[in-house]
């Protein structure tokens, strides 16, 4: 048996009954009372809008935004349902390219976050218990300031007048290389994406690493594993659930992010998020915006499913 237990992996499941144990009378009611409100909340504000969006993707755009009517007396007025938006999406390679570019950007941000967060999480997890809480607090401290302010701060840090830009371009000048622009570039977007999402990677990793039984490392060393082998054979495989959940927490929001590319990116650095935003607020083509959102949701679900499958392969050992 290698199947993974479902504990904690099923959102919306609030069944607490154990098999073979008869629930007390009233337990059923209690369950509905406790689990009902959040369930209803998600149903009304998450599932229902999603369904509305899915339906909207098969409609025509309204003349001044919104949606065209389903039925109209005048046959010259656009109405009814259509696959037009999907034809449009698959008809022009530019949209696929933006999707691929966004996925690569999200992947890069996720991998950089992982590479930076892992050592930090390990350091915190192996620190004395007393200093751990303080270190975790420091990791989440950036959340105390406004997200947009932190992103705008990067505008100043990377701007052409900034010390960083001048230092870099000065050095490049000495080497006889043309100056570069840091701001409004994919580099600026990536650096801010990593900066904003780093805590989302550190926290699940730390939570996982902190629970590791130190005697496993003693055993590995005792059985001949050097420090490198102890990490790759014991610590890292045991931390995979943390790696996966941290990666999901970074990858998924980054994929839909529009504020950071909008503020720090150049004209060529449009990501899916910007494209969708543009459909609703710019060109006012709601059906196409919905189509793009649906496609993004499908991509995210496919990737999340892949990650879950990878995670389940080694058995639910945690």
């Amino acid at each position, binding site marked *: 048996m290698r199947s993974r237990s479902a504990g904690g992996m099923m959102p919306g499941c609030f069944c607490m009954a154990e098999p073979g144990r008869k629930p007390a009378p009233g337990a059923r009611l209690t369950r509905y009372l406790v689990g009902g409100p959040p369930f209803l909340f998600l149903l009304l504000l998450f599932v229902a809008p999603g369904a509305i969006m899915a339906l909207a993707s098969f409609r025509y755009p309204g003349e001044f935004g919104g949606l065209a009517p389903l039925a109209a007396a005048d046959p010259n007025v656009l109405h009814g349902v259509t696959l037009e938006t999907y034809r449009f999406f698959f008809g022009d390679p530019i949209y696929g390219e933006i999707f691929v570019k966004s996925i690569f950007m999200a992947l890069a941000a996720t991998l950089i976050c992982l590479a930076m967060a892992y050592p930090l999480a390990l350091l915190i997890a192996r620190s004395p218990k007393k200093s751990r809480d303080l270190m975790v607090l420091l990791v989440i401290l950036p959340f105390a300031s406004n997200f947009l302010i932190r992103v705008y701060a990067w505008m100043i840090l990377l701007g052409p007048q900034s010390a960083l830009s001048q230092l870099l371009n000065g050095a490049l000048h000495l080497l006889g290389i043309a100056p570069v622009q840091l701001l409004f570039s994919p580099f600026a977007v990536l650096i801010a994406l990593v900066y904003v999402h780093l805590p989302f990677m550190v926290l699940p990793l730390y939570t996982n690493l902190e629970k590791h039984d130190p005697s496993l490392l003693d*055993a590995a060393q005792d*059985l001949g594993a050097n420090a490198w082998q102890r990490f790759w054979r014991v610590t890292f495989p045991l931390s995979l659930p943390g790696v996966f959940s941290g990666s999901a927490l970074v990858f998924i929001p980054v994929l839909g992010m529009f504020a950071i590319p909008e503020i720090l990116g150049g004209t060529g650095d449009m990501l899916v998020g910007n494209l969708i935003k543009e459909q609703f607020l710019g060109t006012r083509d709601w059906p196409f915006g919905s189509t793009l959102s649906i496609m993004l949701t499908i991509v995210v679900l496919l990737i999340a499913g892949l990650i879950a499958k990878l995670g389940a392969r080694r*058995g639910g050992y945690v």
Partner: protein
Amino acid sequence: MAQLEIRNVTRRFGDFVALDNVSLSIEAGEFFTLLGPSGCGKTTLLRMIAGFDLPDAGQILLDGKDLAGTPAEKRPIHTVFQSYALFPHLTVAENIAFPLRMSRCPPTEIRGRLREALEQVRLADKADAYPRELSGGEKQRVALARGLVNRPRLLLLDESLAALDAKLREEVQVELINLQREVGITFVFVTHAQAEALALSHRIAVMSRGKVEQVDEPSKLYGFPRNRFVADFIGHINMIDAQVTEHAHSHLRLAVSGLGEIIAPPLKGAAAGDRGGYAIRPEQVRIGVHGELDELKNHFSGVVHSLLYQGDVSVYRVMLANGAMIEALLPNSAPGRAELFEVGDAVKVGWRHDAGVFLHG
């Protein structure tokens, strides 16, 4: 030359002396046990042999070579941890193969050794199971197989039976003895359970407060404890305050105030006038009615003070003439009869002149 030699090892943690000038030598193929209450330094010593800690002073030599410069992963010494420390993300087979992989064993050899190890601990059908799917006894066998698979010079067992329930523990003890004989690898076992130590070991070192009190075979340790700590720690024992009146070649004559004289086995280094205790095991004390024990050199009158029926044996506590209590163990060989003597009965207790031991101090 001993296989493992511990020479004058001292280890301090702040003001606390965990090991105080300890010396031991362990022979190849031996089942050697470090026995003592918690805090006696036995685990500290084990961790130093494994390489997780270093002595402040002294040396640990394996086959005559000082281990000080060798890190734990390079020592041909494996440990079976108290919690077993099986890798939860690896199957039974992968756990057992772990040390072989670390030593870069060729895959064909890994397969052969793995099969052999799995059969040795009767887990061939569990090769693909994960540790969480195993019972306590099975986990323990995986830990043993993992420790033995690449034939270390020494296998250390840290309270390795403590997590098993009493019935299973007895079974595992027999298996452990057989396994050790089969593989011929030196076992160093750490425990605080004296019954376990007596059952398993070729030799036992009894430790207390960072010092070795006595090193001996189980029967010698039990029969001839060298001091009050060892006598007390191993099994039950009666202790009677006594003074040496005569030290002869064949015996020791002891005076016990208010009681009379005890003839004890001779003891090197004892002299007339020495004060101490005479220790005798309850199962060596016989109990009978008047006249029954007259052939014994040591016999005294008393009154049955209490009795505990324990199924296989009954434990009688008899109050002697000087007010001292002595315990006597009587096997219940006659079925259905719990009480040979009643509380308050006048009885005689006696024992052979070569039983018991005089302890100084």
